[in-house]
């Protein structure tokens, strides 16, 4: 199906064509050049630009409920539509709104396939949380901790064994999480918290887990290490390698 859709205007098929996926009905979207954008801006009133930017913001906010990255192709098809010529301007405006109004950062996590996610820019306030947190966060924390502490890559057996010790068995239905295997290998992967890679030359097929792009951006390794230190009654500095890594890759959530 994707093959057929790629056969549309060859002139568009140059640089920057996003990898087409299932439901792309119209011509693939290529990022317009700055001169094209400038020219197109002349035909658009600021009010129209703002309106489109607001729609983009709303789209992102709603999509955030499932935390699955937003595809640029979807954004263009469903929201931007005929204003695609000023797409970069719209994105700039939307990004600014998300930043200043909501304190959220819009990040492109995949430059090739053009996927976007939202991250909070604000530091978490310690103390009682007003909203009830989903228990999935706890599960995710365990998995991410194991991967991080084991050097960034872990075979899937290690994860399953760890979870079993916590009374979470991927083979059985869990009271809280349901189908655990699906949650870990499908949902967390699609949300880009985890990355699941097949280990080559294994028979039967085995996978290994890495941190996903969202985890890299969202999770503070320093805080993770702090909590682990508290759990183990241990100074986090004793895990020298991880400590070094956590403090070197600290990205200040700047604008």
């Amino acid at each position, binding site marked *: 199906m994707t093959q057929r859709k790629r056969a549309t205007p060859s002139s568009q098929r140059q640089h920057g064509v996003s990898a087409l996926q299932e439901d792309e009905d119209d011509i693939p979207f290529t990022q317009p050049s700055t001169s094209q954008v400038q020219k197109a801006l002349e035909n658009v009133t600021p009010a129209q630009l703002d309106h489109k930017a607001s729609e983009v913001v709303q789209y992102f906010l709603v999509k955030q409920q499932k935390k699955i990255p937003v595809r640029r192709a979807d954004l263009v098809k469903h929201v931007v539509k005929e204003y695609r010529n000023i797409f970069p301007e719209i994105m700039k405006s939307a990004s600014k709104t998300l930043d200043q109004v909501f304190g959220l950062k819009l990040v492109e996590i995949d430059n090739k396939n053009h996927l976007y996610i939202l991250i909070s820019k604000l530091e978490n306030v310690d103390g009682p949380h007003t909203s009830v947190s989903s228990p999935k966060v706890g599960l995710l924390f365990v998995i991410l901790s194991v991967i991080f502490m084991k050097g960034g890559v872990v075979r899937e057996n290690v994860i399953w064994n760890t979870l079993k010790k916590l009374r979470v068995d991927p083979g059985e239905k869990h009271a809280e999480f349901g189908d655990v295997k699906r949650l870990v290998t499908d949902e967390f992967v699609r949300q880009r918290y985890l990355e699941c890679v097949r280990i080559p030359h294994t028979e039967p097929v085995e996978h290994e887990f890495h941190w996903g792009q969202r985890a890299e951006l969202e999770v503070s390794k320093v805080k993770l290490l702090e*909590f682990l230190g508290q759990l183990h009654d241990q100074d986090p500095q004793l895990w020298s390698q991880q400590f070094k890594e956590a403090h070197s890759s600290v990205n200040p959530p700047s604008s």
Partner: protein
Amino acid sequence: MERDSSGGGDSSRKEQREGQQCNGNSDGSAFAPSDLQSNDDDPGLRRKIRSKYRDLINSMQQNREDLLNPSNNRLTEVLEEANNLFKDVRQTREAALDAQLLVVASDLGKEKASQMLADGTAFDTAMFTERLLSFMGINRLEDDDDDDDEQKGGANKGYLPADAWHRLASRAECCFRTAPSFHFMRGSFHAEPPPPKQKVVRQSRAPTKETTRAMPTQMKKMVESHQEATEKEVERILGCLRGYHQQDPLTPISYYEFVIDPTSFSRTVENIFHTSFLIRDGWAKMFLDDDKLPCIAPVEDDEDKGQGSSSCKQCIVSISPKMWKDLIDALDIKNPLIRAPDTQTE
């Protein structure tokens, strides 16, 4: 036979077969007796080499765990064996197998290296899970049969409270800079498109037919009642007009004095509306008196009632609350000439 898990091996083997045929043709001496003696083309030796390579690859895959064990050097020994085999390799087909072996070996090497890294940092998952369970509030049971539990192992003691994972999530959340999800405060309709509506439409077709049948009869009644109300009102006003006219046939009745109700603007508008029917149907006539003020008078029985359409003129009367007040002041209207319908019944 042997089954390499890497797909590349199969295609490379195919290529090797084709390559071998080409080689045979170009050399022109694939089966010449003289060549059986040179190492370059000895098919028997080559078969042996290939078989040894395949054995080596297989053993690497089967003894994976052993090779990965950091306590031995098995992996290096395997590589040395491969090196030895390689000394006799002359043709591409065997070289390809050698390359395949190297691929498997390097994967194992990578994994072995990463294992070493992991061991160095000394993170023990067993300890981690124990601490986690404590944090989540595990209830270590006070047991009667201590022996059984000891056999099972410490990990199976106790049970987790219902909010165990919530507890962990609350504490772990602060490590995440997740963007909060947006939800409508009062909820929203279901975000996914509704199931196909076709069935619903078909089901409701039958009832709508009946309702449309019922509709006209209902509507007729309503329209009639409206019409009746208007007609009655118009007739009543005609009666008023005739009454006033009879009292004083010679003095023209000022139109505005007639329609204006000083107590209610809306009644005034209604009066104008109803009066217009009288004029339209020819029951009353409007004319200007000597002062150029509009007057109204009923049409006598012997006069033409609206048949002289050429002499009929149309005009639009409009009135605003301000005008209404001005007229009341100017004409000094104190009482409405047309009584409100409610008062008639009293």
